[in-house]
């Protein structure tokens, strides 16, 4: 396999894609299906998620084009060049174009769209051509049956060289991994990715799992995030609820999802809706303060205050977390307001912050929140 010079790759695990122009030789449904399977071929081998959008800018913009279509790589009519895609990056990066002059098919009679799409998405994810004739990333067309398709070993090695292996993820330190999919319930070093109230429950997120805790700490066990939030899958960065609106917000990378209870509302949007500067690529934690109707967003050493009534970021932010919340040590992983206190989760510790005393009044183990 080959990667591109400089090894361009996506710095996030959830990518959006949008089909902006369809072909005349296949139904839109067939195109959607072939594209979905083409992307799945890669997310089956590496920690990647793909979310389809139907409006605005997506990471991977997909279209069927003819001849010269404005990207200085004109198509050449039937046969010859079938499609091309651009390496990961802003703007044209990741975009994928198919030659509309070809006879596209879901079978063998013509060029199988799944086969070509899966190859092109390899480029959109950062792989160049492979000189291994058995590889999907080999330059010339060779029919692949979409059902039961297994990514050839050469391509698996290439995509995992860029994004790590499924489940552990390259970006995670190669520490001892939990034997099962569920985090060790009572690991004394347990930390959370995100915590939020949702209705009369408290949700605590960790990697691919989450705990749902009711007021009384009845027996509690982790469930797969995918079972209740299929779009989120894993590694939720932050979450909060505006109870009076009955709406919750879940953040992952530069995207967020809105839910009513566990029901996701529509497609992901970008965090820049809240007014974040473009250099902010992800949120570490978020907490909604009921009385002031403000939501605090924590990003690295700073925090922002968002006015839920005006739906606008407050002026004079970001401010330093240390200045405003003395006593809370380390990066903030998660935050939640319960009974007027703000609880900050930082690694294995949970800090109880009294906003009136403007000080930390108690510190417990994070794992005690799930009954340990």
């Amino acid at each position: 396999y080959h990667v591109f010079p400089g090894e361009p790759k996506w710095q996030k695990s959830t990518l959006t894609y949008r089909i902006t122009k369809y072909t005349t030789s296949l139904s839109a449904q067939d195109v959607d299906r072939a594209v979905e399977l083409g992307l799945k071929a890669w997310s089956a081998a590496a920690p990647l998620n793909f979310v389809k959008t139907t409006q605005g800018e997506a990471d991977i913009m997909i279209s069927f084009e003819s001849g010269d279509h404005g990207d200085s790589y004109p198509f050449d009519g039937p046969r010859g060049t079938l499609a091309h895609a651009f390496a990961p990056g802003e703007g044209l990066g990741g975009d994928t174009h198919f030659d509309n002059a070809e006879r596209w098919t879901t079978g063998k009679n013509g060029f199988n769209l799944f086969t070509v799409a899966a190859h092109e998405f390899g480029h959109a994810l950062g792989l160049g051509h492979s000189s291994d004739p058995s590889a999907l990333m080999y330059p010339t067309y060779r029919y692949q049956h979409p059902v039961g398709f297994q990514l050839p070993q050469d391509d698996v090695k290439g995509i995992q060289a860029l994004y790590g292996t499924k489940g552990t993820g390259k970006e995670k330190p190669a520490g001892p991994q939990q034997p099962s999919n569920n985090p060790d319930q009572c690991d004394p070093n347990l930390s959370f990715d995100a915590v939020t109230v949702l209705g009369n429950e408290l949700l605590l997120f960790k990697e691919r799992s989450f705990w749902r805790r009711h007021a009384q700490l009845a027996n509690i066990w982790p469930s797969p995030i995918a079972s209740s939030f299929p779009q989120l899958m894993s590694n939720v960065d932050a979450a909060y609820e505006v109870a009076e609106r009955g709406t919750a917000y879940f953040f992952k990378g530069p995207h967020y999802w809105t839910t009513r209870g566990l029901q996701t509302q529509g497609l992901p949007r970008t965090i820049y809706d809240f007014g974040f500067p473009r250099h902010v690529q992800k949120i570490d934690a978020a907490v909604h303060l009921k009385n002031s109707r403000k939501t605090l967003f924590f990003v690295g050493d700073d925090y922002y205050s968002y006015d839920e009534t005006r739906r606008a970021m407050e002026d004079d932010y970001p401010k330093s977390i240390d200045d405003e919340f003395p006593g809370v040590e380390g990066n903030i992983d998660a935050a939640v307001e319960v009974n007027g206190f703000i609880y900050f989760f930082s690694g294995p510790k949970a800090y109880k912050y009294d906003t009136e005393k403007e000080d930390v009044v108690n510190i417990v183990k994070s794992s005690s929140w799930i009954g340990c």
Partner: protein
Amino acid sequence: APLRFTWSQPIDWKDIYTAKQYLDKYYSDRGPVRVAEMVADDVSMSRKIRKMQKFYGLQVTGKLDQSTLAVMKKPRCGMPDLAN
């Protein structure tokens, strides 16, 4: 001007043109070559043929032969083979 191409067997001039386009598209170290430059760079064409033959595991001769042409005629992806 006739392309002073080194080839090992009689090759149809259309095929030679196809080969030039193919090599400029997939084995150029720089953007698409303008027509005017085509005649002057036979040496670089031989170099590109070598690169292509090596990539596809063909016999590396630097000369345009039928097996090299056969690969050039296969439907393929529009991205260059040189990961540039």
